[in-house]
């Protein structure tokens, strides 16, 4: 059998396994989806609240604010779902005790990560789509002017840089068997702070704005807001797309390199064993 077919089989192994896990843990997925919808709605209602709190003289456009926040919550939901599915590459196997069997299989780590990533992107798109439908129904949002296709292109382009970051962060559960999975949350919290998910990054102190400029999420949010709020055509998204593609091109190989280093360290110190 050719190496290419073997690699395709191995890549598909992770896609199929994760799909089976979602199927078997469907109640948990349902709970997580309800949580995500409730979370998205809560944040988006702040827009309506601002209109009421500011009074009529302030002339706050509540509908615009709601859509601004909805986009923030949806983009953030998508990026974090991709992030957590990839960072779970190790922690889920530690939880189940299968990590040694997966890491002793004759596959290259890039194939391993490709399988995990393909599933992460497709599942996150589906998951975010459901949250979007629920939000649109509740707020009766007018999306007739929105360039949905452009928004999707921007999300996919932004995925690559997030994949690179996620692969890098996924070494934490490899290096710290007891608390590594919890450590991944700090990365997502910092990105949330500096990327302008619920506010323009201009409101941040100058030092934090610098981090905002190097965060791929900033560009994804900008691009998606342009397409959904202003209906910007896809061919005018290049200023937002090229930075995230560039970051992805750098971060994915760096992520794989970091993962290989961490795997080697774990094999030298015996951290792969289930009991750590």
């Amino acid at each position, binding site marked *: 059998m050719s190496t290419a077919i*073997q690699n395709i*089989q*191995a890549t598909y192994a992770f896609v199929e396994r994760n799909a089976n896990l979602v199927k*078997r843990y469907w109640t948990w997925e349902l709970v997580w989806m309800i949580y995500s919808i409730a979370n998205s709605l809560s944040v988006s209602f702040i827009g309506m609240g601002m209109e009421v709190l500011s009074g009529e003289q302030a002339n706050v456009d509540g509908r615009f604010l709601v859509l601004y926040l909805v986009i923030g919550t949806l983009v953030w939901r998508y990026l974090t779902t991709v992030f957590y599915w990839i960072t779970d590459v190790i922690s889920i196997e530690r939880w189940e005790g*299968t990590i040694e*069997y997966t890491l*002793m299989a004759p596959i290259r780590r890039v194939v391993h990560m490709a399988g995990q990533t393909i599933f992460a992107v497709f599942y996150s798109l589906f998951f975010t789509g459901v949250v979007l439908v629920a939000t649109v129904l509740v707020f009766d949002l007018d999306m007739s002017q929105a360039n949905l296709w452009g928004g999707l292109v921007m999300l996919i382009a932004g995925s690559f840089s997030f994949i690179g970051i996620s692969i890098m962060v996924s070494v934490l559960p490899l290096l710290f068997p007891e608390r590594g999975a919890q450590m991944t949350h700090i990365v997502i919290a910092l990105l949330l702070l500096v990327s302008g998910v619920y506010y323009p990054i201009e409101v941040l102190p100058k030092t934090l704005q610098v981090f905002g400029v190097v965060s791929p999420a900033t560009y994804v949010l900008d691009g998606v807001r342009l397409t959904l709020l202003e209906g910007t055509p896809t061919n005018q998204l290049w200023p937002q797309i090229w930075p995230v593609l560039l970051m992805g091109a750098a971060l994915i190989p760096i992520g794989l390199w970091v993962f290989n280093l961490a795997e080697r360290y774990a094999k030298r110190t015996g951290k792969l*064993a*289930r009991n750590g």
Partner: protein
Amino acid sequence: MSENAIIVNQVIKRFGKAKQNNWVKNLINRKAKSNGHNGSKPAEEEINGPVMALDTVSFEIKQGEIFGVLGPNGSGKSTLIRLMSTLLLPDDGQILVMGLDPVHQPIEVQRMINRVSVEASFFKKLSPMENLIYGARLYGMGGKEIRQRVVKILTRLGLEKRNIFNPMEEMSRGMQQKVAIARALLSRPKILLLDEPTTGLDPVSKREVQAVVNELKEHEGTTILLTTHDMMEAEILCDRVAILHKGKLIALDTPEALKELAPRLNGHKPSLEDVFIHLTGDKLKEEEKEDIESAQAMVHAITNTEETVEEELQPALEQ
């Protein structure tokens, strides 16, 4: 290709680091020295130094051989298997698997081996079929025939068909272990590493697994490394047996030849268990004695410290 399936050459593996600035240790050593003890250097190294999981271990396993490794808990059996299966890197020495180095050619080695560990590790919510297909795909297998092969292997190991599609968490430990063995067989490995595969199995299941191991040797020519605590199992299955103790290889021969290493009891030929106890039990007793002496020195040092503190505090208390 080499006649040997596996060559283990002067392999050393340590875990952990030496602890620095241990004030309790320093206190005990100071007190022990001041009380005329000759220090407690060996015990000190054992307590604070890195754990020597494998200490300059060398042996060879011939192709098609069933090679047993016996040893008390913590003797280095699982470490040895993890080194062979590319899950650990040696600190020194070299292992060759079918002439390939697991450190520098891991993928090539991984294609030829598979492993069953003492704990059956699976995605517990997934069924045996889902788990095994996942495992098979990682080894580049797929298609309809793999499903048929999964059913064939599992039923051969005594699993009922209805259990093949139910979640693993609903199965007994023995049944899960059979699925673990099936997973290893699915990739048709040239070398099978079995780390206590029958631990926790009932006598019937144990025999079924042992029959499969024998079948693999007879019909497939698979080389098998088997670690076990079951001396009878080692005697029945293994062509040669190595005994590890505290990371050191202390004996290696055929089961019959090993029996010559222990004295006869009441004129009876010793069993492999007698040999095992003879070789590792006496050493354990010596270590227990050393541990007791070390603990006594520690208690003595602490008691003296308390006495010194009391002596120093006494005048203040009397005031």
